[in-house]
């Protein structure tokens, strides 16, 4: 069998920031319902020459899992300042979805591609859960092409006919890539095409919070403030999606305070963030709204009213969340009590709820 010749792939080269690599020809197939990859069960995608190959994104030509099209894809972009905990959040969120949230909803989480499996199973999980150490700093996408590859998983919630399948695509990014508009536009363009945004705010990088903390020995360095980053993000979304002024962005925004365990001394004991939850198997809409309202006022107090005003004016759907991926502030890069996540699934479930991707009770 003669394989199809390889040819320069301009799209992939643009994604990787290199000269067009020699790759297999990308063929876009369209079924009667429109563009489709026509992946059949237990049958690999095949090239025109008949050889087994892989599906790729028709836009950027990055690899897609073989059976990616069997469920709706929900792309979540994680945005935050350097050292805000983005990588930790994604790693722990995937772990929680797999081991706790999934079973609670009668579902499961499956990692879809080799890259995701390698990163999660060989890098993230061993480091966090076995070694109980913090993750290494995420390198800029400018110097690490691997950063541009998202983590792809399929979340199944509900049983039998009520089961809902969602492909969750998490884009992680180095904080450096999100700090300037030019870099954000160049290296993290995927952000503008995401179905949902999680803006991770490190409370330890908020001056008002830092001032109230007793122990400041393990604080991260300060970087760009969340308001500036949010403004940059909104501007980029409007430009990329052609959203005119006066019309809100219709992408759900989860304003998420990371490292919420560090806020215990600053917030009241009966703060809804710290209330226990029952394992109901359904998303607690009222409880989520209560947490959001309370945190909204807290953030307004720390960052000023202008932050919340901006959120309301720019985004049609927005909510506030407080999460802790590790459960404690690591000391010298070590977790003394292991990983003890808190509410990491809340932003994700809220978005699934907004997309009506949660099973009905």
């Amino acid at each position, binding site marked *: 069998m003669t394989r199809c010749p390889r040819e320069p792939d301009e799209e992939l080269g643009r994604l990787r920031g290199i000269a067009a690599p020699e790759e297999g020809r990308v063929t876009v197939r369209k079924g009667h319902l429109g563009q489709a990859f026509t992946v059949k069960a237990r049958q690999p995608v095949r090239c025109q020459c008949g050889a087994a190959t892989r599906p790729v994104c028709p836009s950027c030509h990055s690899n897609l899992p073989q059976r990616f099209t069997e469920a709706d894809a929900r792309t979540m972009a994680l945005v935050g300042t350097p050292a805000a905990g983005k990588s930790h959040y994604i790693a722990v969120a995937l772990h929680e979805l797999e081991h706790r949230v999934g079973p609670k909803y009668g579902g499961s989480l499956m990692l879809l591609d080799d890259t995701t499996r390698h990163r999660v199973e060989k890098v993230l999980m061993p480091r966090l859960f076995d070694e109980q150490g913090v993750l290494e700093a995420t390198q800029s996408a400018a110097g690490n*092409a691997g950063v541009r590859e998202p983590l792809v998983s399929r979340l199944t919630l509900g049983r039998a006919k009520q089961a809902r399948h969602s492909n969750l695509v998490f884009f992680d990014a180095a904080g450096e890539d999100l700090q300037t508009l030019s870099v954000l536009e160049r290296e993290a363009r995927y952000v503008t095409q995401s179905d949902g945004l999680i803006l991770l705010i490190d409370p330890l990088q908020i001056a008002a919070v830092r001032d109230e903390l007793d122990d400041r020995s393990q604080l991260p360095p300060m970087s760009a403030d969340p308001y500036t980053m949010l403004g940059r993000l909104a501007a980029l979304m409007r430009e990329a999606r052609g959203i005119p002024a006066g019309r809100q962005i219709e992408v759900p925004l989860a304003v998420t305070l990371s490292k919420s365990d560090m806020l215990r001394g600053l917030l009241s004991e009966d703060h809804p963030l710290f209330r226990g939850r029952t394992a109901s198997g359904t998303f607690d809409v009222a409880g989520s709204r209560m947490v959001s309202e309370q945190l909204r006022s807290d953030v307004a107090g720390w960052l000023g009213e202008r932050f919340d005003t901006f959120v309301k004016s720019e985004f049609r759907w927005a909510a506030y969340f407080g999460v802790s991926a590790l459960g404690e502030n690591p000391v010298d890069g070590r977790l003394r009590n292991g990983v003890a996540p808190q509410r990491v699934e809340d932003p994700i479930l809220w978005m699934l709820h907004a997309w009506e991707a949660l099973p009905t009770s």
Partner: protein
Amino acid sequence: MSHLQAYHTSCREGLERRSGFQFNAASPGIEPDLLRQLASSHAGYQPPRDLPREPAAEQLLSFPVTLKSCAVAGVPVVSQTVYVGREFRGRDGEPDSGRFGNYFSHMVLADRAAAEPFDGLLPIELWRAPHWRIEESSSTDLPPLAVLQPGACDPQWALEQLAPCSSWLAAVLDGALAALEGGPRVVLVEADVERAAAWVAWVSYSLPPDLAPALTFSTFTGQPRHAHDVRLCVTTRGCDLAFAEHELGREVLVLDVSGERPPSPRLLYATVAASLAAQGADALAAAVRGASDGSVQRRGAQLAVRCGGVGLALSEHVPSLLELVVEHAAAGRWDTALQVTEQLPPRAEQEASLRGWAAVHAYARSTTAEPARRLADQALSRLIEAMPNLPGELERVAPDSPTSPSPAVLARWLERLDGSEESECAAPLKEGLELGLIGCNVALDRRVAGTIVERFDDPAVFQLLTTLAGELSNADLVEEVVAGLARAAFADRRELPRLQKAIADPDLSPAAERLAARTEEFDERFVWERLRVEADSSALPDALSSLAPIAIRAGRDSEMKALFGRSGPVSLEEHELLLRSFERCRQFAPAEDVDRSIAALANVSLAADGGGSALSEALRTAAPVERLREEPLFLAWQAVRMTPPSVGFAEWCQWVAYAAAAPVERLSDERHAELCQLASSMAVQALDFDAMLPAASSKQRAVADDRLPSAPHDPLAEYGAGVRSLYEGFRERWPQALCHELTNRLAKGRDRAWVGAAAFSVFATLPAETGELLETALAPAVQRLSPRRLHAIEELLDEPGQLAWERWLERCHSANGAGHGVSRFLRGEGR
């Protein structure tokens, strides 16, 4: 020399004036866009997962070091990246701080103005070079580097490093060469930091000098899945090696050199270079410095020939070597060419190899050099071994090429031909044809012809034979085949259809004709000619002409007529053809054939010439005069042929009269009557004496008159002599016939009055022994003429004649009873 440089790391402050990963410092001459591309291509480090996650300073020294060579935006760049641990390096005695995952990339750009991008050094020779830095710069501006100094890398060092795993040398070089040719990029798994560089050095030093700078490589990459921009990268088992099935072998070749069994190298270059490495760094360096060009296959062949490594070649390497063989032979280096071919495997099976051998064979055959035959034999013996499975459309060799293979090798082909199954004979024959084996040796051709004759009924063989016949160079062979078929047919008539099939084929018939033309034995020749005629009846005249001399010489001329079939010639044309064939040989036809021709003539009307005239003409030259002058029928036809008389009326009449005088058994009454009719017609025409003279044109006659003494010519006397002969020949039939002719002539046509007047005037002067024509022929003829016609005749006569005319009419009237017209004329009507 001036080399721009840049540092990329995570630092508190750099070119972007913030903390985190960025360019810490760079030479001012590097454009921002180029800087961005440099970061994308050369910055970054993913430490192996099996090394400490939080290494101490001394542990950092054991981390792999990335020396990467890869052009960026067209500018050759070499960088060194080392893992430095934490995000922020300690300053002023403070320890490093921040998260782990930091690296330090030092990039050095080629001098764009210099011919040698790195001052004459290979990129790998910058391994551990003194200019590399791993400390942040206090200033964001870096001065360009001056002349680069080599590091610790040289061929000797590389081979020493790789000594424990020398079995992998060929496989690694093989993969790298293939990658340079567009094959899958190589991911080499090697945990040892120095050996990782040594592998790259081995490849770099083994490559031809013009290819070595083009090798893009990385001595370590933590994410080999993403190392698309280098053709050779080294990684460790602690990195992500989970390539998908569809990537392995097509997009990436993973070589774990810790394994025991390296894959077999596919490229001859790699095999030879590895064998040279065993002889030492100097031998390797000297060998690869030699000139080479083209594909890696070709370069491998060049290296093998140069270093005596042809013996290492596998079957897939043969085509490239054979390409070189032709080149060496063309350059007159026959010894080299022969040395190479003698070392190659005695059998060739792959199509490319067979095509290569065919090219060698074709070249050797085309030259006149003394060693060419040996080379041709070498090639041909491989090709013969592969028969009948040679690939199609091989390079065609003309059989009359200057050099022919030796008989011993040709004999092997013949053995293969003879040993083939009857149904498989065509393939080796066809292959022999393409290789120019047919037609290059007379003795061989005879054997081949015999084989073709034996397998003539095989459609494929027959088709091949027609193909052979289409080329002039194969004429002898084709004739040999046809001769073989003929011999078989002459010996056994049951074989005749095969010969007929050959002769009927338009491609083979010329050969048959040539062969037939050379056959002097009557029986064989007769068969040839008979078959020719059967195949194409238009060939009959030629067949007769060809066969006649042979038949005459053999005394078998009477058998010639069998060419027309068992009953011999039937039509007048066939008789004529037969006679003409003898005529052309200036030989009389056999009496039997003459008699048959005359008998054929007897059945043909003299009045309607259906070929009788031509046959009689043929007879005239094909039979002795003695025979013909006794033959009234021949004479009759001669008379017909000479109408109007060209020999003088009296002589013509003598011929006719002689024929007419023959008894009825020799000239039938029917022919007799026809002849008489013809004679009467001539006699009426001859009344115009002037008209009867011109057997030649008036001009010719004038010339003759000038040359010759004017002979006394008495037309009336000649006419009288002629008419007398006719009367003697035909007797009582003669006046009747003449009367009939005159009646018709006077009744219609131009100058009929003149004919009447002439007949009256001439007949009146003729002696009585001419038949009293005035009374017996003219008188009945004018009986029915009108008075006006009779007056018209009269007016053409002179006065005495008119008087005689009237008296004659009156005499006829009283003697025979005049017709109505005469009576009226005599009464004076019609004037």
